[in-house]
């Protein structure tokens, strides 16, 4: 990792440590922690990490931005940082200048389509849009009747938003656009399609899930060294040790898959089958790790980890919720499986061993 990447990630890490301590957030029923955190992130230029300087952003590399998302995952922070970063990245693809404030991307699910009419207005419905209610603007990917893609900046106030919550208790809303005139709209670059947007989002979520698992491992190990049962620390019981070793394995697998995918996208010259494999595999493997790893973390914590007072749910439920954003692991598994079958049996190993 280059020196500069470490500086961006370290900046993010320090802000989270100062302003997004899980215990403090958990006790803050009014959500008063959010404003100072968002202000600090904005002051550091992090929400627009992936926006070039001439488009109003801080011009960090893709790799630097991904390392910020890793850190965000380790703190499981419920602010639209990943979403604003993705939105800024999407707008930058069409050289649309990013506005200030919270953003999110539309659509966020592979089944949803936003269409653009001849008059440039946008219509359609997008479900499970993270933090739509909190966003001031949406970065929208839309297709016309010929299947050509456009990227648009839309004022959130012009759309209908039905509030919803995901498993982790964060906003996950339904956004309806009814002939909405965008603030700006431009053609997407050649070859850019909804799959690319969703896989970029999927890799962002994979890094966040992996980060949450790292934290679940850490707090589970710490707890097992504190909690005494049957007159000894539970960390001394072999069964508990083996469970934690499995959690370490899931955490490591998630991290390996997610960082590999982020690296692949950061260095890709084209969005070929190898990059598709990296991105889909990350989402699939991280989602599986969230299920297995989260289960073990709760098991180690016993009933206390099930309470609202404990911080464990901040990580475990978000990791589970993030599985559904930008295409679930089931969806991407079907897509990956189809692509593997089309390539044929003898081309499977060359694909796996391509990097």
């Amino acid at each position, binding site marked *: 990792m280059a020196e500069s990447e470490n500086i961006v990630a370290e900046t993010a890490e320090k802000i989270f440590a100062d302003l997004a301590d899980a215990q403090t957030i958990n006790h803050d029923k009014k959500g008063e922690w959010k404003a100072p955190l968002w202000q600090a992130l904005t002051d550091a230029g992090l929400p627009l990490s992936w926006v070039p300087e001439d488009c109003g952003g801080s011009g960090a590399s893709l790799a630097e931005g991904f390392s910020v998302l890793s850190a965000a995952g380790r703190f499981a922070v419920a602010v639209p940082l990943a979403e604003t970063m993705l939105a800024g990245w999407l707008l930058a693809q069409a050289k649309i200048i990013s506005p200030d404030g919270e953003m999110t991307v539309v659509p966020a699910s592979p089944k949803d389509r936003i269409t653009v009419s001849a008059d440039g207005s946008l219509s359609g419905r997008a479900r499970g849009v993270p933090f739509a209610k909190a966003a001031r603007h949406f970065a929208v990917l839309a297709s016309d009747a010929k299947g050509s893609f456009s990227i648009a900046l839309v004022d959130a106030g012009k759309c209908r938003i039905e509030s919803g919550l995901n498993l982790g208790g964060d906003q996950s809303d339904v956004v309806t656009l009814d002939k909405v005139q965008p603030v700006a709209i431009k053609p997407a670059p050649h070859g850019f399609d909804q799959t690319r947007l969703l896989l970029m989002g999927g890799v962002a979520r994979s890094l966040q899930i992996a980060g949450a698992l790292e934290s679940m491992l850490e707090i589970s*190990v710490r707890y097992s060294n504190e909690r005494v049962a049957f007159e000894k620390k539970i960390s001394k019981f072999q069964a508990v040790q*083996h469970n934690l070793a499995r959690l*370490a*394995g899931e*955490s*490591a697998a998630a*991290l390996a898959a997610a960082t590999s995918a982020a690296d692949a996208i950061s260095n890709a010259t084209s969005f070929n089958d190898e990059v598709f494999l990296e991105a889909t595999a990350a989402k699939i493997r991280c989602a599986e790790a969230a299920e297995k790893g989260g289960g073990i973390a709760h098991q180690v914590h016993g009933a206390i980890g099930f309470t609202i007072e404990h911080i464990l749910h901040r990580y475990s439920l978000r990791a589970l919720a993030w599985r559904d954003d930008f295409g679930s692991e089931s969806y991407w598994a079907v897509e990956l*499986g189809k692509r*593997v079958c089309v390539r044929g049996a003898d081309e499977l190993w060359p694909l796996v061993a391509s990097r």
Partner: protein
Amino acid sequence: MTAALRFDPIRLPEKCEQLRKEVRAFLAEEIAAGTFDPHKPNREDTDVPEFSRKVGERGWLGMTWPKKYGGHERSFLERYVVTEEMRVANAPTRRFFVADRQSGPVLLKYAPEHIKMEILPRICKGEICFAIGMSEPNSGSDLFAAKTRATKTDGGYLINGTKIWTSSAHIADYMIAIFRTSPPTKENRRHGLTQFLVKMKQPGIKVNPIGQITGQYEFNEVVFTDHFIPDDHVLGEIDGAWKQATSELAYERSGPERFLETYYVLTELVRAVGNNPDTRSAEGIGRLVAQVHTMRRMSVSVAGMLQAGKEPVVEASIVKDIGTIWEQQLPHRVRELAAFVEETATNRETLEKQLDFATKTAPKLTIQGGTTEVLRGIIARGLGLR
């Protein structure tokens, strides 16, 4: 973060891709010549001396070792490529694999110079086969419980006792084994074991084959009766084998052979399903491919750590733990999906035969090279739990 388990996204350098092409071309030639059948993992004739010599001639044995011992001073990542291509092709590597992966590096580190000069070049030429003598009846994964004695005598040691589950002992020219030279001490249960280079096919060694449930004869019982080993065949420190043996295990536990052993059933499933899969088949295959991809990324990452001179003991144990569980589950998952394969699939019979063999192979995968339970103990230690 306490755990700090990093698996950096190591990419194979360009020269590895050139090498991969060479290995694939070589394997294609050998398959065309009838040396082995890539669709038959359950070969009766897995020992193919001629194949070993050809691999040696290509410079693919002892790849990372110094040139003065016949090695090629190439990287762990290049060796990684050769290993995975051989494994995926089901090439007959039994004769050279243990020597190349493990025995050679042990000799490099602990053997006297004249032994290195004598034996290492022959491993590089693919001429000799090694076995590893660790387990004993009633010891198994509990290395400290080994009882086979090495008793000091004039100019060497006399060996008495039995090793078991010793793969390839029936064809091996040498074995690197641990024997008991002193009793364990109260303070250190690990004390008293010494590593020796054993020349097989000598008086005082009897090899008895043990059949496996796959129908293969790969395991052996090796009985030592007053077998003499000269002093210069002691490897490393007397009574200090435990440390030596464990420091080598990262090589044994993280390689591609630790998640690809049943991989062939996945390839064959894709062939049977064809290019227009139903949703269930597509999803099942997608999940399995995501797994193998992730395992490989982790394994390549550990190869990169080895190349960087690190000793990734915990990381290697994680790769072995989840890798062998994955390759153990793979035939069962493929079986579930194969239930929907059309009767007319041309490779149906091959797939069924492979599934039969892979399912029978599966139980040993989480045992060889350190049981799952032992590995989880090592990981737990790395997490600071013990």
